[in-house]
């Protein structure tokens, strides 16, 4: 095993030995003595009144311990949400159902087979009503999803909610005046950014064990936010948060779907308390698709006003954003995240109006990128259309409108401040590597032979590393779960008495390799070998007060906290080593599992010797406290703003409409890089999800609200044969927001990629008269667009 630990080095992951041998422990692998299993009865209707529930046959079935309905759990209140705008989800449907898949009853039995038998014996009578699924229809308020409440929960238009928190910019800075200019070119497109299903391969799972004797509860949950879940459990049951332990062990992918508090997490705790047995629930794939959160779901119009020299005078975006029926964690705040990056890399007047509208569908919330892929999609698609309209190369139009490097820090259209950026260098680096001019010649040559090749380009800005404590008032906290903590980072570094090291962090990783990356940070600081460092996370009581893993925040915030804790341990260890070596602490250097005096490598002590002294205080300098550990909390002054440029080459089959993604290049900039292998892996997976949105995936409800994509066969996920190898490179523009200079990389690939592919397909077809095709660009849709363009 490689023990090279320097930051920026490639090391094999510490996580992997257990996972590649099938020895990792995910929630469904955990067994508790005496456990019972739960299964939910779910609504087949999108809008209905429940007229009766008859659970008598289910309750009479041997092996069934309980059947719960709203009457049993109503007193606990709804499922809590962080940004509680709209109607919160009842734990179990109470008299009405608002979407297909809504939980109506919970059956608890000896095992999952018997629980399913019991669920089949619960008879629910419904009186179906009219469902609202179409976004424009919902926006019209002709039919209400929730009686006596407008379907539009709020509109993000620069005058809402954050008033008094940040300075409000002009909501439409001179754009309408620009349109009146004689030389103005106005380009506008209505586009759909379709609903997606996050689809972590591990379905969500929970197992709750309420201990009557201790008055405490332990909940294992496949969650990205164990601390928030613990807060929700404590608040719901009215017990202190220190009586709730939520453990997120190995988590099999998140992408936002596990960044929520769900009814099952509360209901299994409730059932365990009532039945005095541990209670487990593991969702089926259909449940993962239609009763855990979905993402995206916007229809909007993007408009650019510019001039023929490529100058953009104004960018406008108005969209209706689908919230689904109930509000979850951040639901209405997801479009806000898009607004944070509405203008992308460009110094352009920007106006926006995003309507958050409810429908009779499953809730939407954060799915990888969360508002930012949507924002990048609309902006980068309309810039492409504008470039085509004025006959300029799309790369040149983009460059003509970049914020120059000397402009940073840059004030965004929404009033936030972008930290650092070097956009033209990044794009030029991509164009040079790709051989852009040759690629265009290749495309044109192919076209002259009747082949439909297209080149797509997109830039993007991400905003991540949440977050600044000052944003707590905007919803960036866990106050909704009774834990009013801002999105701080936290880390504890402890050198054990034998000289090994334990690092405990407040993140909730689901495959991001935190154990490896965090060990690199600590190893780099202390000179303790990677194999002697253990990184622990995902325990709401044993971890420091943490926030979880989402929004590409972990490294910039929690990584920094661990770095700071490492520095504190190092400072104390230098005093101890100096004492042991009879040298000044400032002359102590750490390397090779120990410390030595600068310039005298023979005057050295091992970490074991330093630690032994630390835990035997009589050997320490007089007055020094024993022990060798430090904790740190980091609240950044700002978010971080990664960026990048992506390019795709596609070929469209004119006979079938099939799109072949031939090549994909990405040049991303996430600031400093700690483990390039892990960073590249994040980009690979992110690109795959963006490409999948462009070409394959779509969560579909019919007009009655029936859910049509409940299996992995109906919901077209990319397989290995669907994708090419990805050709990556990076530029490095460190942030000044944290001492590591790191920005975050979890979502960048997704934010940059969907529109890159769509731009490429439209480029391949534009000469036929195709201006736009809505995603996903499946063969039938592309073929139809070709036919329509040809008339």
């Amino acid at each position, binding site marked *: 095993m490689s023990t090279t630990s320097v930051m920026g080095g490639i090391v094999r992951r510490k996580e992997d030995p257990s996972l590649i041998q099938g020895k990792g422990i995910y929630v469904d692998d955990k067994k508790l003595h005496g456990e019972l299993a739960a299964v939910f009865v779910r609504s087949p209707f999108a809008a209905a009144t429940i007229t009766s529930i008859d659970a008598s046959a289910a309750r009479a079935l041997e092996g069934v311990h309980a059947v719960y309905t709203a009457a049993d759990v109503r007193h606990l209140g709804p499922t809590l949400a962080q940004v509680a705008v709209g109607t919160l989800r009842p734990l179990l449907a109470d008299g009405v159902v608002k979407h297909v898949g809504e939980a109506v009853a919970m059956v608890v039995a000896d095992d999952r*087979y018997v629980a399913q038998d019991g669920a089949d014996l619960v008879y629910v009578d419904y009186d179906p009503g009219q469902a609202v699924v179409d976004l424009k229809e919902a926006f019209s308020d002709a039919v209400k999803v929730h009686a006596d409440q407008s379907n539009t929960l709020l509109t993000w238009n620069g005058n809402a909610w954050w008033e008094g928190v940040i300075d409000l910019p002009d909501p439409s800075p001179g754009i309408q005046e620009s349109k009146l200019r004689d030389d103005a070119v106005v380009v506008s497109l209505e586009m759909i950014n379709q609903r997606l299903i996050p689809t972590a391969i591990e379905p969500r799972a929970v197992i709750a064990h309420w201990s009557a004797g201790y008055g405490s509860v332990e909940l294992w949950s496949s969650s990205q936010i164990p601390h928030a879940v613990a807060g929700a459990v404590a608040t719901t049951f009215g017990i202190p948060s220190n009586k709730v332990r939520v453990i997120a062990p190995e988590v099999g*992918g998140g992408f936002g779907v596990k960044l929520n508090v769900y009814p099952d997490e509360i209901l299994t705790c409730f059932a365990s308390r009532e039945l005095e047995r541990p209670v487990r629930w593991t969702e089926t794939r259909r449940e993962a698709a239609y009763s855990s959160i979905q993402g995206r779901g916007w229809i909007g119009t993007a408009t650019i006003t510019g001039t023929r020299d490529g100058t953009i005078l104004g960018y406008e975006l108005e969209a209706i954003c689908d919230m689904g029926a109930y509000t979850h964690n951040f639901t209405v705040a997801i479009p806000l995240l898009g607004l944070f990056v509405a203008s992308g890399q460009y110094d352009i007047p920007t106006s926006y109006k995003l309507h958050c509208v409810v429908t009779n569908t499953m809730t939407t919330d954060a799915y990888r990128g969360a508002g930012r892929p949507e924002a990048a999609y609309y902006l980068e698609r309309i810039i492409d259309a504008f470039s085509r309209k004025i006959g300029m190369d799309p790369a040149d139009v983009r460059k003509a409108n970049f914020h120059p490097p000397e402009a940073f820090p840059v004030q965004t259209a929404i009033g936030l401040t972008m930290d650092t950026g070097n956009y033209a260098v990044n794009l030029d680096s991509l164009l040079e590597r790709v051989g852009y001019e040759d690629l265009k010649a290749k495309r044109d040559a192919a076209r002259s032979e009747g082949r439909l090749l297209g080149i797509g380009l997109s830039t993007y800005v991400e905003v991540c590393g949440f977050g600044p404590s000052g944003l707590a008032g905007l919803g960036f906290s866990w106050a909704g779960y009774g834990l009013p903590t801002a999105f701080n980072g936290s880390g504890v570094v402890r050198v054990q008495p034998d000289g090994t090291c334990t690092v405990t962090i407040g993140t909730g990783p689901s495959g991001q390799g935190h154990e490896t990356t965090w060990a690199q940070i600590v190893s780099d600081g202390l000179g303790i070998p990677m194999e002697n460092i253990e990184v622990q996370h995902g325990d709401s009581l044993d971890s420091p007060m943490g926030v979880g893993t989402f929004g590409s925040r972990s490294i910039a915030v929690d990584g920094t906290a661990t770095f700071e804790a490492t520095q504190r341990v190092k400072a104390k260890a230098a005093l101890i080593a100096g004492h042991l070596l009879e040298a000044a602490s400032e002359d102590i250097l750490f390397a090779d599992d120990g410390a030595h005096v600068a310039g005298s490598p023979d005057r050295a002590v091992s970490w074991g010797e330093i630690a032994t002294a630390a835990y035997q205080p009589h050997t320490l300098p007089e007055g020094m406290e024993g022990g060798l550990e430090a904790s740190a909390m980091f609240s950044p002054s700002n978010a971080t703003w990664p960026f990048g440029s992506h390019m795709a080459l596609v070929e469209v089959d004119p006979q079938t409409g099939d799109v072949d993604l031939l090549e994909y290049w990405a040049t991303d900039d996430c600031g400093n890089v700690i483990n390039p292998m892990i960073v590249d892996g994040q980009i690979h997976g992110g690109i795959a999800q963006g490409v999948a949105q462009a070409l394959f995936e779509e969560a579909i409800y019919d007009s009655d609200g029936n859910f049509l994509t409940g299996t992995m066969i109906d919901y077209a996920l990319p397989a290995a044969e669907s994708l090419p190898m990805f050709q990556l490179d990076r530029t490095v523009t460190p942030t000044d927001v944290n001492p590591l200079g790191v920005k975050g990389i979890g979502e960048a690939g997704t934010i940059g990629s969907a529109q890159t592919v769509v731009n490429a397909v439209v480029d391949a077809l534009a000469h036929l008269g195709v201006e736009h095709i809505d995603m996903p660009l499946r063969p039938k849709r592309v073929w139809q667009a070709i036919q329509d363009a040809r008339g």
Partner: protein
Amino acid sequence: MQVHITVNGIDHGGDVEPRRLLVHYLREDLDLTGTHVGCDTGYCGACTVLVDGRPIKSCTMLTVQADGSKIRTVEGVADGNQLHPVQEGFWECHGLQCGFCTPGMIMSSVALLESNSDPTEAEIRHGIEGNLCRCTGYHNIVRSVQYAGAKMRGETPALGVTAEASS
């Protein structure tokens, strides 16, 4: 119903419900939780095991259908403490992130390489098309299988952390 099944070289016999899925028998009766359940339609492949040498989705096979067969799971591919080349490849080439699809992906890759020791990239992508991964975009999984193929052919893999660190 009485079944006799050999799993990773160990004989198991006993009474199982006719409706019991093989994956639940492996995970819950034999405590071999390395085989995962990612869907219920045989599509994701997280539950892939080798039944008499062939990759099978154990979530869509009944335990009684496996009566008399020899099964290999991810727990049975290493030779004692010596990782199987496919496992080594996934570690060396960052072929996993969350690790949930990995056991099934490893079993399909083992089956592929046992039938084709030198697959092209296209053959690798085709060979694992029954296994879905949401984390990696398959890029590093393909490289992992290439690494393992080289190793199984007795070559020194040019890919992976060790090779890159020494170059």
